[in-house]
């Protein structure tokens, strides 16, 4: 039961990663690509962490996994902000249809 739940989360996470990667490759400008990277991939990693936490040997190990996810959230938010503000400073206009 636990295993199949874990597998479900892992696969779901992988799907979000795939979507994020697709967005990175297909989206038209730097701002939209940032969306793909930060949103979809963070969610994907979160699901994977959840799936792995279910298999974790101890509470401490599960905590470490959760911690990694939180760190990544903070780091990717900052990185996204840095890239976007650099692009804005460079005068790259957001894409419009």
């Amino acid at each position: 039961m636990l295993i199949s739940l874990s597998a479900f989360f892992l696969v779901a996470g992988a799907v979000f990663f795939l979507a994020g990667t697709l967005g990175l490759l297909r989206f038209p400008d730097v701002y939209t690509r940032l969306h793909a990277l930060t949103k979809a991939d963070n969610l994907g990693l979160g699901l994977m962490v959840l799936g792995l936490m279910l298999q974790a040997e101890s509470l401490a190990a599960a905590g470490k996994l959760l911690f990694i996810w939180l760190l990544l959230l903070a780091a990717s938010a900052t990185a996204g902000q840095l890239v976007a503000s650099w692009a804005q400073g460079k005068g790259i206009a957001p894409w419009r249809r």
Partner: protein
Amino acid sequence: MASLNLLPLAIDLVLALTLLWLAWRALSSPDLFRAVVLFIALGLVLGLVWVRLDAVDIALAEIALGAGVTGALLLAALAKLQSAEAETADASTEQEGDWQGCSQALAEPDAKSKPTLTASATMDATGSAMPIALRILLALLLLVPLAGLGWVVWQLWLPAPGLTDLVAARLEASGVAHPVTAVLLNFRGYDTLLELAVLLLALLGVWSLSSAPHLGDEEQEPALAALSRLLAPLMILVAAYLVWVGAHAPGGAFQAGSVLGAAGVLLRLSGWRVPPRATGWPLRLVLVLGVVVFACMGLVVMAFGQPLLGYPPGWAKPALLAIELAATLSIGAILAALFIGGRP
């Protein structure tokens, strides 16, 4: 059953081919920034390979040092080279990728670089010195060592007597419970001492070449500053943990030192400075501390009738811990200083 056995092999094959492909792309990409990013990716995949090979210590070091520190150094150097290039007001030869400016944003324009010879400065382009025929000839010639080395590796297929058993037999006396740390700090501690000296030497060389601090004097990003304030204490904690855990599991001074160095770099980028009164001998003392403690510890034991770097029974554990702590501090400081570039 057979498919289960083949799956890991298939994964490893894919990993190995990815390695070669990334290396080829990194070395042949016409855009330097892309080349560096691909090289960093190569380091990360290599980290995965080390995990597959049960070498977690190396995986940590590869990702922290091989991909992380080397990558950061490469990006910083590239940014400085290109901002100097932009200053000479030449048409840039490197294709400006979307992301390229990120690295430039990290660095101030290098104000010290002289106005330079310009016509030749941009000649690089994709940068091969050789005509294509010669390159093909060289590639064909290199097939010989490729085949030869491959053949030799094939010969090495038969398991040879390693030192695994000997290390295991002496692990008890080494003062640590993790074999790699035992080899690194005790059995082959002499190498590690000199390796610390090599790292320090690189910093001496870098400082002998340049006099001005280069990096991190630009305006700060508030988000980065906030993240740095959040992360720096955490990274110091992680470094301490890595030193401590190195005694019985993968980890140790070099991995911890690189985390510490990264914390220093982050702090620097978010505007923190070493106070001016500490940039003189106090900073230098921190930089040499690892080698000094290691060397003095090795010599002091000789006064007690032990061989050079031979710790008396029972004393190995505290001695190694002291060495590791000092080494971690020094490695962190040296790596951060290498990244920042100019001497204070």
